[in-house]
């Protein structure tokens, strides 16, 4: 049995409730952290039946977290609660038979809506959202096992077998995961990036083509890649003007699936007639929505496949910084400006 638990814990907590009154991009940065968060000593959260308490080692910082903290994510904030949708650590308490069976296990976990989040020394989750980690999965990979890898797996699985897709912001962690997954599952990824540096690494990971949207020859290269690979799906983290152009250049039946909003300027539907005659569509993807829709066996299978990829080294999470919890208020904003790497909050 673990040692007796303390009464209090250190946590980053929300300073605001509800949603932001203004529409903003879903940004991965957090420059005005003092407006939204503070470091506090708060009581250890209480468990309900079926829940476990995790002593957190690493918490992940995803665009979904930074946008939630700023009040532009699809779920209302509660003042005084710790944010943080995912992390890893050790189960130290459980309510109920199944929850207690996890005591002492090293787990990756996702925090359900309204739960006490991962940016704290202790977090609460449902026992079935605590995933025991296989040997060989690094703690750092465990901390980022759920949001990005499951998003990548769920979205790539939605591309027809042997088909092609286009991914924007392809140099991101998620883009890299998708490139490897595409190659493994016999799908063709066309990545769109904003710099030349990630082009060759992404091709090495498995992308068939990688195009720099800032190149003068981008439109011609895009037309050629579309002609060659015939992508049917656009997986879009950016939702900007370029994505609108890409969708209108794609062929019959192309689906534009938006899962993030890194751009501030709204895209336009340049050719509404293509919705009619070319049966094109525009829709969104939200991991939380996917969770609610998917069956438990399908999720377990997907999560197992994700762990196996990390365990055998097919995937790794590139860590930019491990920011200690007590220094997060000062160091997190700077750490989050590094492109294309993952920032972790460390409780040790």
């Amino acid at each position: 049995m673990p040692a007796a638990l303390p009464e209090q814990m250190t946590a980053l907590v929300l300073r605001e409730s509800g949603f932001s009154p203004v529409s903003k991009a879903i940004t991965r940065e957090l420059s005005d952290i003092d407006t939204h968060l503070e470091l506090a000593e708060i009581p250890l959260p209480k468990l309900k039946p079926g829940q476990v308490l995790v002593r957190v080692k690493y918490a992940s910082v995803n665009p979904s977290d930074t946008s939630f903290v700023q009040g532009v994510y699809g779920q209302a904030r509660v003042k005084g609660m710790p944010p943080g949708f995912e992390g890893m650590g050790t189960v130290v308490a459980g309510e109920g038979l199944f929850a207690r069976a996890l005591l002492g296990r090293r787990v990756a976990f996702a925090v359900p809506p309204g739960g006490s989040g991962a940016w704290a020394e202790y977090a609460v989750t449902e026992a079935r959202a605590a995933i025991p980690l296989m040997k060989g999965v690094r703690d750092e990979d465990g901390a980022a096992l759920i949001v990005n890898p499951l998003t990548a797996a769920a979205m790539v699985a939605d591309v027809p077998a042997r088909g092609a897709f286009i991914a924007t912001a392809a140099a991101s962690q998620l883009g890299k995961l998708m490139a490897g997954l595409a190659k493994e599952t016999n799908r063709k990824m066309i990545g769109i990036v904003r710099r030349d540096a990630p082009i060759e690494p992404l091709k090495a990971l498995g992308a068939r083509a990688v195009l720099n949207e800032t190149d003068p020859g981008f439109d011609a290269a895009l037309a050629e890649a579309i002609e060659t690979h015939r992508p049917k799906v656009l997986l879009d983290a950016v939702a900007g003007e370029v994505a609108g152009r890409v969708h209108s250049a794609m062929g019959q039946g192309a689906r534009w699936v938006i899962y993030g909003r890194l751009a501030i300027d709204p895209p336009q539907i340049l050719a509404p007639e293509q919705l009619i005659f070319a049966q094109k569509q525009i829709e969104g993807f939200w991991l939380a929505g996917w969770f609610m829709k998917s069956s438990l066996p399908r999720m377990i299978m997907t999560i197992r496949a994700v762990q196996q990829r990390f365990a055998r080294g097919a995937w790794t999470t590139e860590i930019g910084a491990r920011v200690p919890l007590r220094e997060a208020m000062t160091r997190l904003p700077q750490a989050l400006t590094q492109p294309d790497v993952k920032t972790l909050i460390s409780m040790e």
Partner: protein
Amino acid sequence: MTIPATMQALVQLHDGYTTEPQDQRLSDMSPFVALREVPVPQPGPGQALIKIARAAANPSDIAFIKGAYGQPRKAGIAAGFEGVGEVVAGDTPLLGKRVSFFGTGTGTWAEYSLTDAQTLIPLHDAVADRDAAGLIVNPLTAMAMFDIVRASGTESFIATAAGSQLGKFLIQLGAEHGIPCIAAVRRAEQAAALTEMGAGAALTITDADFEAEAKRVLGEMKPRIMLDAVGGPASATLFFAMPRKARWIVYGRLESTPPALTEIGQFIFLQKQIEGFWLTSWMREEAPERVGAVISEVQQRFADGRWSTDVSAEIPLSRAMEEMPAAYSQPDSKILIAPGG
């Protein structure tokens, strides 16, 4: 009946598609079609020749002659998708009968038109020519799209450009089935008329407080489907005021300003989506029995007077080049072309 060797027809001047962006306005016919004396087409196996009484001119016809419709143009062939007339030749037991039809071989903006004999729709006597000329495009689109509304389980739905003939059909279908139509229109007097006709609510997109009013009405009535003939910025405003899981179904593009997607989070967190509807795809993909049943129901509605077509202008074929643009620019126009004139 003797069939002449040549006929008057509005023939297309171009092949294929335009490469320019287009809307559905029409200021001049002459870049796209010309009135010519051409040979009367000869029916081959499986085809029928119809002597046209009336042809319809819909927004889809205008998009087609401009090269902005989903099928390629053929230079030298008459334009016009649908009409009514008498079968005068061909491989069909319907010789001598009055039919509604889709001009699959040559178009209906002519004295004679060629089509697949299988697609002829024999008419009840009670269906007037003015209804029969436009029996297919608007009524079938309304019925097929209303099937989507019903299947979705929504409590209400939005129709844009709701003062159009198609919009009025949708309003009536909504009233009959207890799924009220929220009519979006450009002018306040249309709003009043459509509410009278059975629309559950009306929104005037040119009003100063349109956006606030849209949020209030849509917040109360919770429509999850928008049937959109416009494809413009006001449509986007409506879409972003709709509730969770809303579907924006575009079936026309009356507006040339492209809509901007200002509330991206709604696609992700509210699971909203945008798609299109095209009658041609529906007819290809829907079970033939369902298509047949819908056609019978449409005829029944015209025959018993539940539906009728408000014709805004009837133009002689010989005057169509000159008169069509002005007639077409009238709000909610419903134009017929008459070869006899």
